[in-house]
Each structure stands twice: as C-alpha cells, then as structure tokens.
C-alpha cells in the first residue's frame, strides 16, 4: 500500500538517498536496517511526507503524497519518534488526544467519539492506568507506549517507528516489541520500523530492508535476508546468524569487526 519508486534526497547538496524503491503491503511489518547515517530516518521522513524527495515518487494506495494536504496525510500515516520530550506538563490523556488533530476542524473540540478512540488506544497499549498522570513523570518505556497510543488514536493506515526502542532498557525493549507485534497481529496495523537492534528485527519483522549509504543493498523476507554475509556488508561486522530453538527465530551474535 505504501510505495516508493527511485526516491533520492539530499540535505543542502549532501546526497542521502539514491534511487530507493520499496513496497510495504497492507498489514505488513517491515524492518529498516542500516548503519548510522545510512538514511533510515530520512527515508521514514519521506514516507511520512515530512520531507519531499528531490526525485522519485512516494504514493499510498496509488495516491502520490505530494498531492495530499498535511491533514490528509496524517490520517493515512502516523509517526512514532525515538524520544518525545514535552515543554509543558501535559497529561497522558492530553498527549493521546493530540493524535485526533487531523480528524478535527481548526476550532473543533474533541467529542465523545474522540475520547473513546483515545481510551481504546490507551487500553491497547496497556497505559489506561495512568491516563490522568503527567506525561513527564512516566518512565521511558511508559512514555513510548503513550506515544504509540497517540499514534494509534490518529487512526492512520500506516505506523512509522523511528528506532522506537533505542532509548530503552532490555525489559522495555522486549515490552515495546511485544506490543508492536500484538498490534500488528490483532489490529492488522501496517508498520515500518527502523532499528539498530537486529534481534528485534528478527523477532518482529517478516520483511527487512537493508540500507547502506543511501542505497538499498538487499530487501526481502527476514529469514532469507538476515544473513551473516549481509550483516558483514552492512556494518563491517563479523557475526553469527543462527536459528535459536528456544526463541524460535533467527538470532544475531556479533563476534567482532570485520576488516
């Protein structure tokens, strides 16, 4: 449902993406892997319509993003950033209700329907218990779940997540991964997740896209694409990729730098 064709982008003359083409099907969970500076975040910004590509096309269900208003776009695509910091003391419910912005007119207040959608999103992310708490008093993992709830309240077709677990400890990483997996299975939410955590990608994503220096070097089903050879060419790291019986999925154990 989300397509890019030959997308290129440059920040003030510095090229970041070169001819990136990818397809995200409805209900899919796609992992975006690549070293720092490979263009993952830029690609997500382009998929969200926040950046306009210098060349190439981005379309959702065949409709080019360039022809949509910000509000229309936000009803189709939601974004979860790596970290969210508030300047003022919003409550958790306030934060989730902000997801309703693209569905409301400029002077409209949230109605009962919006409140119900927000509460449902809180329940789906296991954050209903602290709806009245101040967002700033939550732990990192709780904050990230609330931000995901806010994105769910946006009721978009696609969720783009930019390293959603990068700032979290092991327990919260697993918690967010489990939450995303559940949302994908139970609600059929289409997701694109960028991450540095290869094991998270292996656990969560049925397809992965490998990005290096702004080019897609490989994409396909995780089982076939997450290989020792690809990890080496992506990160210059020697790693063992093996099927872990107890986990029931591929696991990546980095051994050392490959020169």
């Amino acid at each position: 449902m989300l397509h890019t064709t030959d997308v290129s982008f440059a920040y003030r003359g510095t090229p970041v993406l070169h001819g990136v083409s990818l397809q995200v099907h409805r209900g899919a969970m796609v992992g975006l892997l690549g070293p720092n500076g490979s263009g993952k975040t830029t690609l997500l910004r382009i998929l969200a319509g926040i950046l306009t590509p210098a060349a190439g096309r981005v379309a959702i269900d065949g409709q080019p993003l360039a022809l949509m208003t910000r509000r229309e776009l936000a009803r189709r695509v939601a974004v979860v950033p790596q970290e969210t910091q508030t300047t003022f003391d919003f409550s958790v419910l306030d934060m989730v209700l902000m997801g309703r912005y693209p569905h409301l007119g400029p002077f409209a207040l949230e109605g009962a329907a919006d409140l119900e959608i927000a509460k449902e999103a809180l329940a789906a992310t296991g954050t209903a218990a602290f709806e009245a708490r101040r967002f700033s008093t939550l732990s990192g993992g709780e904050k990230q779940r609330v931000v995901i709830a806010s994105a769910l309240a946006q009721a978009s077709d696609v969720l783009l997540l930019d390293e959603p677990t990068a700032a979290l400890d092991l327990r919260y990483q697993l918690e967010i991964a489990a939450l995303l997996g559940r949302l994908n299975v139970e609600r059929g939410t289409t997701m694109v997740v960028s991450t540095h955590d290869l094991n998270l990608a292996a656990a969560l994503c049925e397809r992965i896209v490998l990005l290096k220096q702004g080019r897609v070097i490989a994409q396909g089903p995780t089982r076939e694409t997450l290989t020792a050879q690809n990890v080496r060419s992506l990160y210059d790291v020697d790693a063992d990729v093996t099927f872990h019986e107890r986990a029931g999925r591929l696991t990546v154990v980095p051994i050392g730098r490959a020169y």
Partner: protein
Amino acid sequence: MAFGTLAIAACLFAPLAGSTRIHLGAVFDRSIPYADNIDAQIFFVARLPRVLAAALVGSALALSGVVFQALLRNPLASPDTLGVSAGASLGAMIAITFGFDFSLLGISAVPLASFAGSFGALAIVYGLSAARRRGTSAIVLLLGGVTVQALLSAVIAFVQYLADFTQTFRNVRWLMGSLDVASYAPIWASLLPLALAWSGFATLPRALDLISVGSESAAARGVDIERAERVALVSASLATGAAVSLAGPVSFVGIIVPHLVRLIVGADHRLVLPASALFGSAFLIGCDLVARTIIAPLELPVGIITALVGGPVFLWLLLRRV
C-alpha cells in the same frame, strides 16, 4: 470563568480607586453637567483610558508570552525574546532623542515611532524564520532573536548617548514602562494591530499544543508547521509591538502570567491562551493600581511594580521546577 470574573472586577474597581476619591454614583449622575462633574472627568479622562490601556497591554503581553514559549519550546521565552520590544524601544528612543514632533490620528510621534521600530524588528525576525529551513531547530530562531535583541540594545545605547539631559530623562522614564495614557486615541489605534493579532491567535491553540511537543511530530499529526509558525510569529510580534508602543517595555508580564496560568489550568493552549489574556489584563490593572496609589499623589511607572512583583514570583517558579 474565574479569570474572566477577575478581569471584569479589575476593570470595574480600578478606575474608582486612585489618589483622589471619586464616587461611582456621582460619575454617572446625569443631573450634574459634565463640565462641572469633577468625578466624571477624573473617571473618564484620567482613570478609564489608563485602565483600558492596562487591560490591552496586559493581555497582549501575556498572549505573546504564551505563543513564544510554545513556539520556541522554551519556558523562559517572553515577548522580548525575539527583539520585537527592543525594536519598539529603539523607535521610541529615536523619536525622543531627535525630537520628532508630528502626530497622526491624534497619536504623537513617540508611540508611532515605537510601533514602526517594532515592525523593523519583526521584519528581521521574519527574515530569520524564512531563512530557517527544515531540520533547523527552534534554537536557531531563539539564538537569532537574542542576537537581534543585543544588537538593538547597542543601538539604543548609542542613541541615548547622543541625547541631551532632558531627553535622557524622558528616555529612561519611557524604558521603565508606564501606563500614563490620558486619551483614547492611542487605545483606538492599538486596536487594529491587536485585532489582527487576536484573530491570528484564535487559529493557533491546538497547533501550539502539538508544536510544543516537537515540530516534527506535530507535522506528522497534520499541523501545517510553516503556516502555524508564520501566523504565531507575526501575531505575537504585532501584539508585542502594539503593547510596547502603548506602555513602553513593561517587563515580566509576558513571562510570569503564562506560567501562573498553566499552574492552574494545565498545559492545553485552548485554555491557557484565553485564561492568560484575562489574567494578564487583571494582573497589569492591579499592578498599575498599586503604582498609582502606593506613594500617591506621585505615580510610579508600572514597570517597576511588575518587576518587583514578577521577579520574586518568577524566582519562586524556577526553584520550584528544579
């Protein structure tokens, strides 16, 4: 609601209080001809314009403060942060020092020059914001604003250096911020830029909520960031310019009123904006009342009172946050 009541009460009570006692009954007593009714003359000529000016200036500064704090994602931002009030001050200093002596629609040269100065500063700030491409943070705008402010302050110092003794006295007095408004003409004149600013503010509350959480996530939720930032910058600058040209740079109103209001109503700008406008009015009317009466019959510049009240309150807020 409570803020509205407070603002209305302040508007009603303040004109009656002052160095000379007057009676409301006598003010509206039709049996006494206006020319002989001293109570009515004090009420309508000396007090009412001043209270109305305080209400307008207080609300304009408080609203601009709210908008700048959200836009720059910085709780320490104020109407002075982007240099608009320094621009307005420079305009006034030039008019006083070089003895401009003209008037337009009954408004004298100093407020006119001051408003023109605020427009000059606004143009610089607007240029900064236009040059600000995506990926550049609010920090750039903030640093740019602080730089513009420092530059303009240097030019103000230069102009003051050229002034003679009496002009310097007037300059210093003007910079203290005073609501010495004794006619309705400047109030009427300020209503035009203020009305433009208010209609801009009216479109902003929800967008400001989202922008204060992060401009990129706001964009992803459907906020037209560039348009919202433009409207916010221009409206807040217009309001600040109008307020400063009316009363001089009255300090602290634009920074503490939004914080006090947020303590009471929370962070939602749909409440914070109107509540700040009302509380800003009431606060400045109250401060001006103190300024007029505390060493009556002498009248202190209201800027001294707002700083004396606002400074300690703001320090308390800062310490409370840590």
